[in-house]
């Protein structure tokens, strides 16, 4: 569930107010947000002349580690609630808001050599399947989905992150994998996505929060992400609104 | 002829050009000053330095295009080059092993050779722990172990003490006598050269300057270097039968020569006088003492003048004549001790 700050006036509506000093805003964001947040950052700079948004994209876990070790971050957008919790437990995070959700799909190579059509097909021992490792969000989601469907899949590999999983499909090393819808869209036709109903029971939340000692500008950026403008950018990339 | 070679090696500031023939069982010694190209010649024969030009024929077979490992050649290097990671025994057994002998056989052969070199007790020692002379002898044994048909030795006796040298020289001499291949040896030591060589080849500046039997070369040196080597004073002049003119001097000699001629006499044939002597020696001139050094039991005096000359005198004479550098002195040589021969 998301918290309060919905519906506030988009901060981009007040361009002239903070033009005084050139301000810098440091945003730590999960690597899977690279495309969307870069676009939002440009929009934010355009709306707030004199500000500069600097991103540090990386694995959510690494980012959390950096923040707890004193990294100078203003905003943290994580790919899983667990990593956000690490930061919150250290007393460093402000209010957390889930700003998008990501849903799994079955990714297969365009020629779909194993003729995979639904989740059940993945249980066939002849089908080579790649899943994310349980420790990373997409892996946790995959386990939830398979449990929900009551299926048991023996993958050939448990990948470190979604991109690695996707690469295996793109290169035809595996016949199918469970990845996020956003990744299927980003792959621009190099893999085909097959939605499946059990995905709804395994949705991954992306929380965002301003961090301790962040400048006022930080909240403005969070507001932009949560605004309709932000939603447009994010849903275009395949994310689902919370 | 076992070995028939023309060796031409060109280097930026140096050119070596030698004709070399060595007969069956013959030992040829290359003698020459530092930098003359002796080592370079041996390396070319061994296949370690490519020929710029020329050919090498061993027992009727051209080998100049063969790689070093397929030439039937044994080499003793000037600085030994014993393999530091192998014991003395394994160094010597290396060659036989490469020739395909069994390990036991190779080691037996190596033991035998080390024993003959008086090094039996050092067979398990690494080269770093050998003294200079011990190392040299192991190197010799290693080269002999491959039973080469051409044996090349670069100063094989240089690091040996006088005692060991005598023994190893005899051992070498004996091996070489029972060896029907060719041997080429480089040495600086005239004694080694005289004892070991059947024939001497004197090399200077990359070219042969004199060649022949040791006694012949000792008697009739043709260059200053050779003359000094065998301890003679040597000059080049013009003979007119009776006398040979050198610089401003005219020498009377035992032999009669007409045309370009060498004049040679030993330092001990030179007498020195404070004042012009009256007697009959016909080769007489005045000079100035240039240097004095002990030489064996005698003293060698270097005298400058119309020609530079070395004289050997007794220590008593030095005191008596009060010989000191810079002092003028009269030099005389008896005609009967002066030899002349065509240049």
């Amino acid at each position, binding site marked *: 569930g998301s918290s309060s700050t919905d519906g506030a006036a988009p901060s981009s509506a007040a361009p002239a107010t903070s033009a005084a000093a050139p301000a810098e805003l440091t945003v730590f964001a999960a690597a899977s947000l690279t495309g969307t947040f870069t676009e939002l950052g440009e929009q934010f700079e355009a709306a707030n002349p004199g500000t500069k948004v600097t991103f540090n994209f990386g*694995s*959510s*876990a*690494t980012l959390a*580690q950096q923040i707890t070790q004193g990294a100078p971050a203003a905003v943290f957008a994580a790919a899983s609630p*667990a990593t956000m919790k690490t930061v919150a437990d250290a007393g460093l995070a402000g209010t957390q808001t889930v700003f998008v959700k990501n849903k799994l799909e079955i990714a297969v190579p365009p020629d779909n050599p194993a003729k995979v059509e639904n989740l059940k097909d993945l249980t066939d021992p002849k089908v*080579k399947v*790649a899943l994310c*490792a349980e*420790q*990373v969000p997409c892996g946790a989601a995959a386990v939830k989905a398979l449990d929900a469907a009551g299926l048991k899949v023996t*993958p*050939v*590999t*448990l*990948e*470190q992150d979604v991109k*690695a999983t996707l*690469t*295996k499909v793109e*290169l*035809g*090393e595996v016949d199918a994998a469970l990845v996020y819808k956003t990744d299927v869209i980003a792959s621009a036709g190099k893999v085909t996505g097959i939605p499946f109903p059990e995905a709804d029971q395994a949705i991954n939340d992306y929380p965002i929060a301003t961090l301790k000692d962040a400048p006022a500008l930080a909240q403005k950026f969070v507001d932009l992400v949560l605004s309709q403008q932000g939603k447009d950018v994010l849903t275009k990339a395949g994310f689902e609104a919370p | 002829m076992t070995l028939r070679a023309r060796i031409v090696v060109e280097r930026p500031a140096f050119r070596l050009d030698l004709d070399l023939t060595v007969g069956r069982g013959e030992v040829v010694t290359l003698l020459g000053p530092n930098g003359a190209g002796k080592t370079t010649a041996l390396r070319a024969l*061994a*296949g*370690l330095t490519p020929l710029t030009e020329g050919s090498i024929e061993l027992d009727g077979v051209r080998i100049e295009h063969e*790689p*070093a*490992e*397929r*030439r039937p*050649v*044994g*080499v003793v*290097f000037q600085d030994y*080059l014993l*393999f*530091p*990671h*192998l014991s003395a025994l394994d160094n010597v057994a*290396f*060659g036989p092993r*490469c*020739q395909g002998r069994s390990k036991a056989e190779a080691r037996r052969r190596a033991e035998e050779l080390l024993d003959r070199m008086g090094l039996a007790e050092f067979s398990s020692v690494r080269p770093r722990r050998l003294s200079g002379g011990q190392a040299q002898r192991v190197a010799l044994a*290693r*080269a002999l172990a*491959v039973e080469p048909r051409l044996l090349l030795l670069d100063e094989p006796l240089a690091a040996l003490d006088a005692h060991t040298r005598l023994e190893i020289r005899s051992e070498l001499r004996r091996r070489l006598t029972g060896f029907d291949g060719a041997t080429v040896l480089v040495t600086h030591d005239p004694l080694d050269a005289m004892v070991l060589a059947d024939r001497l080849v004197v090399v200077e500046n990359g070219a042969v300057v004199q060649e022949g039997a040791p006694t012949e070369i000792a008697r009739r040196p043709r260059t200053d270097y050779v003359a000094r080597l065998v301890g003679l004073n040597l000059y080049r002049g013009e003979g007119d039968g009776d006398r040979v003119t050198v610089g401003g001097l005219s020498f009377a000699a035992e032999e009669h020569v007409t045309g370009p001629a060498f004049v040679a006499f030993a330092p001990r044939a030179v007498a020195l006088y404070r004042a012009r002597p009256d007697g009959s020696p016909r080769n007489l001139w005045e000079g100035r003492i240039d240097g004095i050094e002990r030489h064996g039991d005698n003293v060698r005096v270097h005298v400058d003048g119309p020609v530079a000359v070395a004289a050997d005198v007794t220590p008593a004479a030095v005191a008596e004549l009060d010989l000191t550098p810079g002092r003028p002195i009269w030099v005389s040589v008896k005609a009967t001790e002066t030899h002349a021969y065509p240049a």
Partner: protein
Amino acid sequence: MRSRVPWLLVVPAVLGMAFLVLPLAGLLVRAPWSTLPRRLSEPQVLEALRLSLVTASLATVICLVLGVPLAWLLARTDFPGRRLLRALVTVPLVLPPVVGGVALLLVLGRRGLVGQWLESAFGFSLPFTTAGVVVAEAFVAMPFLVIAVEGALRAADVRYEEAAATLGASRFTVFRRVTLPLVAPGVLAGGVLCWARALGEFGATITFAGNFPGRTQTMPLAVYLALETEPEAAIVLSLVLLAVSVLILVALRDRWVGAAA
């Protein structure tokens, strides 16, 4: 008999040592020691450790067999294009390991240039197998061996090789019986680099061979995944890996130094 201490050498050396060892101290301080026994008794951890040691050692053997001759070729022979090849040897060093893994997939994967042929001819595919781990590690680690050995070969005195040739040794015999023993310290140094690099290999391995416990999950993979959820567990696992490798290296050196003396 000893000289004065050369401070200009000792001071930077101690600084360098501190620089390398202090972060380790940081890890030691932070490690949750109390969980160590539990971690060590987890079969997955032991399996990953075993797999790491086995694959790193196999990769080192492959690197020695292929890399030492390659170093020799680069140091002792002259052929057109040698300089370019020598620079190309460093490629896997510079390539980010993940890209290296992709490159391996492109060549040795199921649909790769060589791999599709391997699959159709032998029904054999490298990715997702332990053999694939060895290949990925060898690819990443080999340059270390080649460069270290080439350096040692260049510094060695070729006159010993000449002496061996005059004793009738073929070039291979010269290499085996003279060159190799002479450059043994360099080969050892290269082998250590190679083994250690293979042991720590992560990116290329996970990309090319995937991550499956007991088959392709080496310690660095286990560590990485542990970092995602329990950073402190990751530290413990790393320390286990370090301790084992340090122990093995100390033992190896002792043995080797003993044999050489």
